[in-house]
């Protein structure tokens, strides 16, 4: 089993490691990341990415996780020995969101474990400060 992690979710799926590559078939890919390949396009519920010319992603029903990440233009960190990989968000997506100046929404807990969502404070001016004990 291989654990595929994104912000806020993780999924343990069937995958094999071969020469440093993480290989999985269509169903585990769909389970882990919500993406399916249809006629040269990699789609989930909200977006579709066409495969670049000459791409052999998914040939023989086998997907290289690194190639999936590259096709999605998303950063991937892998530890084959530990059986885990983290799929991050692209700089393009983050830059576009920040450049729009719409404050990206999030939900985080307080010390009591109560969740707070930034957008619920619309209507007030928000002074947000990130700090740490370090």
């Amino acid at each position: 089993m291989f654990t595929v992690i994104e912000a806020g979710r993780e999924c343990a799926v069937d995958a094999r490691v071969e020469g440093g590559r993480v290989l999985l078939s269509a169903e585990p890919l769909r389970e882990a990341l919500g993406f399916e390949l249809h006629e040269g396009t990699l789609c989930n519920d909200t977006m579709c990415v066409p495969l670049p010319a000459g791409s052999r992603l998914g040939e023989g029903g086998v997907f290289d996780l690194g190639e999936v990440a590259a096709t999605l233009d998303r950063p991937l960190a892998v530890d084959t020995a530990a059986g885990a990989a983290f799929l991050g968000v692209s700089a393009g997506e983050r830059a576009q969101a920040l450049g729009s100046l719409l404050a990206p929404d999030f939900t985080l807990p307080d010390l009591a474990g109560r969740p707070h969502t930034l957008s619920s404070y619309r209507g007030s001016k928000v002074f947000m400060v990130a700090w740490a004990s370090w």
Partner: protein
Amino acid sequence: MWQALYEELRDRRFVVIAVALDKSAEDARPWIEKAAPTYPALVDTQHVVADLYNIVNVPTALWIDERGRIVRPNDVVFGTDTFKHITNLKSARPLAAVRAWARGETAGFAPGEARGLQALPTALDQQARAEFGLAEWLARHGEAGAAEPHFVRAGELAPHDFTIRRGSMPIRGIDPMGPQFREMIQAWAAGGRPYYRPLPDTRG
């Protein structure tokens, strides 16, 4: 420090939201309890906000208006002058600026200006965050040995990101105030690079 500001301004439809980029709620707890905030004091152990907002050090503050728009992007704002002798950053002017904004006396930056002041993340920054995300997950699942090279790699990919380079230290059992931190800072400063990068009108 922020509690006084919040109490002063809360009937102005103004809220402080503090986000602790700490390895656990327990690390943040003593500081939060001492501040006894009535504003949201949140804990972000997976550095979600650092990723969303391209935050690379603490303390970092930004202003978001009533419509959810960023009107002052990432800035270095201390609540007190406790560290002034190290940082050379005084708290009075930025705090006066927040007050004036909260009271409606000033408006924050216009969109073009705000965009001009944003530091946007690069592909390397995001790769570093993926490595940190993996390392944090591994550490949280008891795999400190597996996590370590990913923490190191993250720091190599984004050497200016101290939420990674210093923020990972408590997770790795390294004292974030100790010799490894001091060495890191000295090496950074020796390259002529500032540890804090306030906005021009904060730096003065």
